[in-house]
């Protein structure tokens, strides 16, 4: 029974997409050719959609909260979508959205992986929905080849890996042994962040990398791996570099269980527990991409273009695919990040790209 209804839904979905596609081609053929934001939508007609993997991840939940904050700022509400890290579900949700009224649709999307981005981009382009993506896209997919894919923003993992590497070196006094907990080895984030650590090590020759292991971005795996590394290297370990905060927190638990409080730990992502640990002084540093800002900015870019306040053609090429600013958090500035709030000024149409650190290379 479930099967039938799914089947029907799929058929209806395909039909609707097909209808939408025909609609588009007809207008184009008719010469009406509505180019991006030619006439502009009335602000109240804009539909705002934010989509992330799941709300059980504090970072992604704060992203959607930031989207809500922006929506409230312009008197709208954001539709919050989550797909549980399931690529198929993400595509289904997008198809359903695009099958509806797409005239003034603005989507701020976190694609599940690089390969999930192209179908989303193609779908939005065909349906004429304004799209901003973050974090994941294939390197050879150019935003400038599309009219409705307004912008893609991500963070320079090499930079953040280096930032926390340097903070760790400083915390252990510039010399001593450290171990690294890598993320899922075949992801770009893990590779870039580790490359950043290697840069930092090159600049701090007295710091020695004793071991590097993967804990797959997972707190539980990091706990086990750290325990093993602690028995392997013992007191030689002065610091632990983790490619994300979840692993850093797992490492902290392992240190606590081993009765060690002389080891500095750094991570990336600025999840709430890590901030608490930095406040307590048990953890040294983390890096924030500012989730709430990410949730707001994608919608803001789409909204400004949809309402005609910003013409899509006026977005400079270097702002179509760019690195956004990230913030190193240590004990002295952690208070500013404990309850992050969005700043309305960041989302003003003439200020959208103020956090750019340059075009993606």
């Amino acid at each position, binding site marked *: 029974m479930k099967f039938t209804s799914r089947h029907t839904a799929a058929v209806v979905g395909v039909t609707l997409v097909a209808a939408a596609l025909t609609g588009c081609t007809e207008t184009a053929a008719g010469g009406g050719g509505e180019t991006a934001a030619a006439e502009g939508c009335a602000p109240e007609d804009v539909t705002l959609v934010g989509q992330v993997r*799941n*709300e*059980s991840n*504090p970072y992604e*939940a704060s992203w959607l909260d930031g989207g809500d904050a922006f929506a409230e700022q312009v008197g709208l509400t954001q539709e919050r979508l989550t797909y549980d890290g399931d690529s198929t579900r993400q595509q289904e949700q997008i198809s359903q959205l695009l099958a509806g009224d797409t005239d003034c649709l603005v989507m701020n999307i976190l694609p599940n992986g690089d390969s999930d981005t192209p179908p989303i981009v193609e779908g939005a382009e065909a349906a004429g929905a304004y799209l901003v993506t973050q974090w994941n896209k294939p390197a050879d997919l150019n935003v400038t080849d599309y009219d409705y894919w307004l912008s893609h923003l991500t963070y320079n993992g090499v930079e953040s890996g280096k930032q926390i590497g340097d903070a760790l070196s400083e915390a252990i006094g510039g010399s001593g042994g450290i171990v690294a907990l*890598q993320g899922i*080895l075949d992801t770009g984030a893990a590779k870039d962040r580790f490359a950043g650590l290697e840069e930092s090590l090159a600049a701090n020759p007295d710091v020695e990398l004793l*071991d*590097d*292991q*993967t804990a797959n971005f*997972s*707190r*539980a795996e990091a*706990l*086990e*791996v750290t*325990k*093993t*590394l602690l*028995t*392997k*290297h013992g007191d030689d370990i002065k610091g632990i570099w983790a490619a994300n905060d979840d692993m850093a*927190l*797992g490492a902290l*638990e392992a240190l*606590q*269980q081993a009765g060690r409080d002389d080891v500095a730990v750094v991570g990336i992502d600025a999840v*709430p*527990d890590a901030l608490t640990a930095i406040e307590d002084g048990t953890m040294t540093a983390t890096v924030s991409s500012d989730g709430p800002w990410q949730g707001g900015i994608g919608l803001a870019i789409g909204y400004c273009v949809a309402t005609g306040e910003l013409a899509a053609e006026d977005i400079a090429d270097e702002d179509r695919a760019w690195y956004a600013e990230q913030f190193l958090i240590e004990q002295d500035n952690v208070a500013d990040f404990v309850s992050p709030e969005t700043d309305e000024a960041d989302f003003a149409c003439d200020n959208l790209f103020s956090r750019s650190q340059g075009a993606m290379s």
Partner: protein
Amino acid sequence: MTTSPAEADTDVVHAQRPRPRRGVSLMDAGPPIALVVLFGVFAAMSPGFRTFSNVQNVLDAAAVLAVVTCGISFVLMMGSIDLSAPGIMGASAITVALLVANNRNDNDLGLVGVLVAVLVAAALGCLSGLALVVLKVPSFMATLGVSAVGLGVATLMFAGVQPNISDAMLEGWAVERFLGLARLTWIALACVIAAWLVQRYTRLGRYAFAIGGAEEVLALSGVRVAPYKVAVFTMAGAFYGLAGVMVTSQLGAGLVQAGRGFDFSAITAAVVGGTLLIGGRGGILQSTVGVLLVTVLTNGLVQVGVSPYWQGGVQGLIVVAAVAAAVIPQRRRNQVTK
């Protein structure tokens, strides 16, 4: 089996009577031998591996997997598959984190909270069993569904803010040691013994075996099989629930993903230990040997210094080799699983 016939004869006479199973066959001896060999190889290669503190570490690291595997072994003995561990563990992890002293609410139920979490998990396990016998959903799908339900329940309770526990007892389980081992390790040992007693001395355990061996025969002899199947899944759920509580104790926080990956690592451990996927063979002790094998392997590869880029592949190869070695005497029977 070509050793002195006299010795073999006395063995058979003793072993055949009480139980239909053969005595210590090659199949049963394989995994323990593999464990000893693996341990020896790593100990020879790495001075860090053969330290006392690392042996402690291996045993502590095996605790959670051992409890999950206790549960899954009964299901495998019946010839069913259980993929519900991640969901059930997630639900119990969040439940217990919200019921003991934590940063989300004012609850402070202590041991009662642990009990409730295990009961919630048992209820979810019971749901799998009911779906199997009442709705005739294959166990593979039923348990996958229940896992999703568990994750859903956990996500709802999670509500965006991670519950961190401050309950002294639960945190102590992971930190405090008794005779050199963490309390969690003793809990796991107690579970293994309890599960073994159930398997050996109760009707539930024996029927689980019999269902996996020849369900039709059992049914034809007038045994109502269905209630036992539900009971086995309920018991498995309770074990997963306890494992979820243990993960919460280790991590100091209730995570929705507390059980991620435990379904397949537990099945792997059970199979490596000699529990057959078609049911009717193996048991708790065999599975526990499998758990130790898997844990020693994970730990040893790090101690020896195998690059993380190679570890996944090397680990997979060794596991396949170990299973192959264990089941060679059983090849014909194993073919059934394709």
